[in-house]
């Protein structure tokens, strides 16, 4: 079956090249049947990629070790579910998943818009096909998942840290996000190529962008939770280059989701929006380059391979293509209106955009810094957490404040008098919260205190918005259903606030104690007493588990176990932390036991108390809920758009 998989990928490559070359010619020479043929080629490319993916999935499920990829990433002891998740556990499989999602998204976007935007689609097809051609070339010529060998008795197996339910969901979510950003990019490029830079590309891609942004956000949160429970260093985000690689396009897409509303309402920021769409797409490819080139040190990187050069080449080429297109069509992107006041909703969106892009670029600089120092000084110098934390506070806290002010400012312009009137309640709530927090002892961390106070302010503005809006419409349901994007956005804002409280609480107000404990010795931390009750070793089928048993008394009474696993196949260790969530106190007791001596029963222990950390995960659920509200189709809006676009074609 590997031959059929290779053939299917070769067919995908041929179809992508056909859709790229013939589609470009058809759009350029205005030929309808040829354009439809190119579109059909893209649809077929999805079909042939699906066949290739099905063959690989089947081989993984059957443990067919004649496939080199299957033998390298699974073994007989691996469960069926994790065997299937090995699809994206290795380089070749994850590239195939990327191509599958890209051709799937592309086929769906083209089919959905084929009637109303036929002229635009003629240009979108070759752009999507161009991206698909790159991935198909890499899969056919450089990193094929269909390499075969003489069948070994057993496979190497999946890295233990990837044998986690979160790792089943995290990579596909990220791919759905990364690849999803290709669709708005393709439509924006199509609009520029066709010279029709009206709003139709925005209307067509609004939900695609939102969906890609939602998946990228959820993927990062799931990845953070995996790091928290599995990696075992006590945190959830380490400003690792590969983690940053997912954050950067998400920030650019967040800026775009806000600024595109200004274009829709005022016909402004057309160039800026094109730049943001291109930036988000390029950063998603750049992130993949970082992950796969081995150029930066990261715990998440795939092994170093020659594939990085291909991605770097593609980033350079596609960036030149995007910049060239925007410069070429600059005269078509002039705004017809201007900002009426610095005190308006659109102005706050603009400030928010500047802060988001500034944060994105400072992170990018932090990621590039080791590469730049290696290039120019011959030594690799990395930028650590203090750099990122500084800019997160510097840009993040004003962003949080703007999140509260923005919704209460009217479009076009507002007066200070009106603004102060609507802000009175939220400011009052924030002040009371700030004073109460200082009284409760939260003044030990100024950034933490500011983050909490701003969070209270934002939550109060959301409440004020919902109450005032409900008074006008008579029902909260009617209010939300009339403008799902706005009110879904407010729910997402609430999720960001929960995350901000969780981040501030766990980082600014947490406690850490490290001790070496002999058998029966105790340590104290924040009202908990932990006593070493010994070390236990449990051999199992494919793993030897070593655990320190710690009796906990004080704020909670019970036992926490922490230690390590030594897997036999593949022979790799993994850290296993002990976490006790105290929902009543809204904090986690996080125990890392290391250097366990089975003979002397002495252990080295690092214990952390992490207040409010679980708000981050709860915020993820709220984020999903808000995103779905904003994504939910609005039949009335769709009718309005169809009647706007259709008669223009009459």
């Amino acid at each position, binding site marked *: *079956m590997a*031959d*059929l998989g290779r*053939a*299917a990928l070769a*067919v995908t490559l041929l*179809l992508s090249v*056909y859709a790229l070359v013939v589609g470009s010619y*058809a*759009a350029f020479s*205005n*030929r*309808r*049947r*040829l*354009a*439809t*043929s190119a579109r*059909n*080629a893209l*649809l*077929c490319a999805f*079909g*042939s990629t699906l*066949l290739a993916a099905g063959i690989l999935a089947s081989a993984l499920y059957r443990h067919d070790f004649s496939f080199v990829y299957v033998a390298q990433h699974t073994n007989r002891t691996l469960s069926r579910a994790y065997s299937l998740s090995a699809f994206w556990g290795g380089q070749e499989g994850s590239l195939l998943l990327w191509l599958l999602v890209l051709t799937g998204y592309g086929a769906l976007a083209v089919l959905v818009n084929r009637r109303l935007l*036929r*002229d635009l689609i*003629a240009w979108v097809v070759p752009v999507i096909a161009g991206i698909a051609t790159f991935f198909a070339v890499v899969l056919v010529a450089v990193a094929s998942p269909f390499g075969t060998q003489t069948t070994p008795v057993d496979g190497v197996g999946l890295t233990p840290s990837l044998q986690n339910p979160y790792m089943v969901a995290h990579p596909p979510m990220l791919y759905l996000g990364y690849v999803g950003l290709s669709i708005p990019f393709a439509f924006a490029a199509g609009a520029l190529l*066709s010279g*029709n830079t*009206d*709003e*139709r590309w925005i209307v067509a891609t609004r939900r695609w962008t939102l969906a890609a942004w939602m998946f990228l956000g959820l993927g990062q949160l799931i990845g953070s939770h995996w790091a928290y429970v599995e990696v075992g260093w006590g945190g959830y985000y380490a400003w690792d280059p590969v983690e940053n690689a997912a954050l950067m396009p998400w920030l650019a897409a967040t800026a775009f989701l806000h600024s595109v509303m200004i274009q829709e*309402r*005022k*016909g402004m920021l057309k160039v800026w929006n094109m730049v943001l769409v291109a930036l988000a797409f390029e950063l998603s490819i750049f992130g993949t380059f970082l992950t796969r080139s081995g150029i930066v040190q990261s715990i998440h990187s795939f092994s170093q391979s020659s594939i990085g050069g291909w991605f770097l080449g593609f980033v350079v080429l596609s960036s030149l293509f995007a910049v060239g297109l925007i410069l070429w069509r600059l005269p078509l992107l002039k705004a017809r209106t201007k900002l009426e006041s610095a005190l308006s909703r659109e102005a706050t969106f603009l400030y928010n955009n500047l802060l988001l892009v500034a944060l994105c670029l400072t992170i990018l600089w932090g990621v590039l810094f080791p590469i730049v120092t290696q290039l120019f000084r011959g030594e690799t110098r990395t930028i650590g957490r203090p750099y990122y934390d500084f800019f997160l506070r510097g840009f993040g806290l004003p962003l949080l404040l703007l999140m509260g002010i923005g919704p*209460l*400012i*009217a*479009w*076009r*312009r*507002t*007066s200070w*008098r*009106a603004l102060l*009137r*609507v802000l009175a309640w939220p400011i009052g709530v924030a002040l009371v919260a700030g004073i109460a927090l200082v009284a409760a002892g939260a003044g030990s961390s100024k950034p933490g205190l500011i983050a909490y106070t701003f969070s209270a302010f934002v939550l109060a503005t959301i409440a004020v*918005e919902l109450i*005032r*809006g409900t008074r*006008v419409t008579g029902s909260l349901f009617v209010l939300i259903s009339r403008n799902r994007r706005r009110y879904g956005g407010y729910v997402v804002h609430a999720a960001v606030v929960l995350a901000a409280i969780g981040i501030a609480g766990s980082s600014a107000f947490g406690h850490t104690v490290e001790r070496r404990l002999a058998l029966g010795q105790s340590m104290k931390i924040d009202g908990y007493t932990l006593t070493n009750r010994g070390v236990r070793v449990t051999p199992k089928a494919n793993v030897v588990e070593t655990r320190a048993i710690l009796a906990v008394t004080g704020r909670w009474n019970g036992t926490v176990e922490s230690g390590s696993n030594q897997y036999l196949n593949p022979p790799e260790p993994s850290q296993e932390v002990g976490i006790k969530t105290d929902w009543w106190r809204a904090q986690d007791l996080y125990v890392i036991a290391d250097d366990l001596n089975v003979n002397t029963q002495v252990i080295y222990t690092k214990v952390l108390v992490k207040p409010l950390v679980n708000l981050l995960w709860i915020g993820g659920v709220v984020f999903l809920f808000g995103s779905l509200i904003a994504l939910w189709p609005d039949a009335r809006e769709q009718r*309005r758009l169809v*009647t*706007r*676009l259709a*008669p*223009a*074609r*009459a």
Partner: protein
Amino acid sequence: MNVTVLVLGILLAAGVVVVVALPFLREPQVSDDRLDAPTADEERRLTLREERDRALAALRELEFDHRTGKITDEDYRRDLGPLRRAAAGALKRIDDAELPPEE
């Protein structure tokens, strides 16, 4: 490579060729093979409709912002006139362009 794989490969290739060639198989001869890209006139109509929708949306926003207390009565009265004139102007320009009626 076994026979089954070979047959499946040939079927895949043949199916793909048929689907890609379908537009030409369905319509071997056509009088007009141009893409229906919007003409300059249609582009202008689309722009006018976008302007109209923006003006009407701005009026709706103003009304809602006033009722939710985001702008004062004085600001509301000041902005209402220009926005109404902008909306009326956009509607008039659509009438002048003799657009076919919607629905």
